[in-house]
């Protein structure tokens, strides 16, 4: 099935706005908040695909490989 669930992520803006500008201006090391936000975006993007579940073609493929003629399971 191709039904897509909406990504249940919190509003990124709220998190970003409420958190304060304690931004360390050190260029070399990323702040923990930045790392956390990068991670969140990465996962949100990834999970959009994950949430699509298993497309039919793969279910069919596995079932077919699992024994062509076995229609009624065991």
């Amino acid at each position, binding site marked *: 099935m191709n039904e*897509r669930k909406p*990504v249940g992520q919190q509003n*990124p*803006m*709220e*998190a*970003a*706005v*409420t*958190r304060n*500008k*304690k*931004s360390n*201006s050190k260029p070399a090391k*990323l*702040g923990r*908040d*930045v*790392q*956390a*936000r*990068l*991670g969140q*975006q*990465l*996962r*949100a*993007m*990834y*999970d*959009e*695909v*994950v*949430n*699509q*579940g*298993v*497309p039919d*073609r*793969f*279910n069919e*493929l*596995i079932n077919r*490989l*699992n*024994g062509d003629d*076995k229609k009624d399971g065991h």
Partner: protein
Amino acid sequence: MAMDDSVRKAVLSAVPSLRAFAISLCGNVDRADDLVQETLLRALANIESFQPGTNMSAWLFTILRNHFRSEYRKRRREVEDSDGHHAESLKSQPDQYGHVEFREFREALAQLPSDQREALILVGASGFSYEEAAGICGCAVGTIKSRVNRARTRLAELLHVNSAEDFGPDETTRAVLASGGE
């Protein structure tokens, strides 16, 4: 070729994440699904080499990655600037991942060197440990760690973020939220 029901379940439950990883590797949903299909065929043809009790997902990721790499090397002759090509193919299909809000992020991700992107996805999105990711990529744990760090730093640069505040779809939204919220 009947397979153990638990094996079948383990394979199927890895499929959604395999697809997400495959899309991040090749930047194209159709190609990614073919890659997943080829991975499943290979895996099931060699299922006896899977060690029961070990991580099925990591095993499948390893097969997918190796398969992609060998295919990729073949295609490389045809495509000169492979990373640039990847970036372009992601840009040309902005909706394939879904929400437009990820566009900027996706484009930045596409600009990372492929080994860094891969390490970041495995650890940061697929949820593998550094050790598992090292196993999948066939490299040292320290290599994965440094790739992930470099990937994060580069992403932050590309997205021009110095603090969490800098994230967001656009300035207007931020301004509206800032003025409306308390």
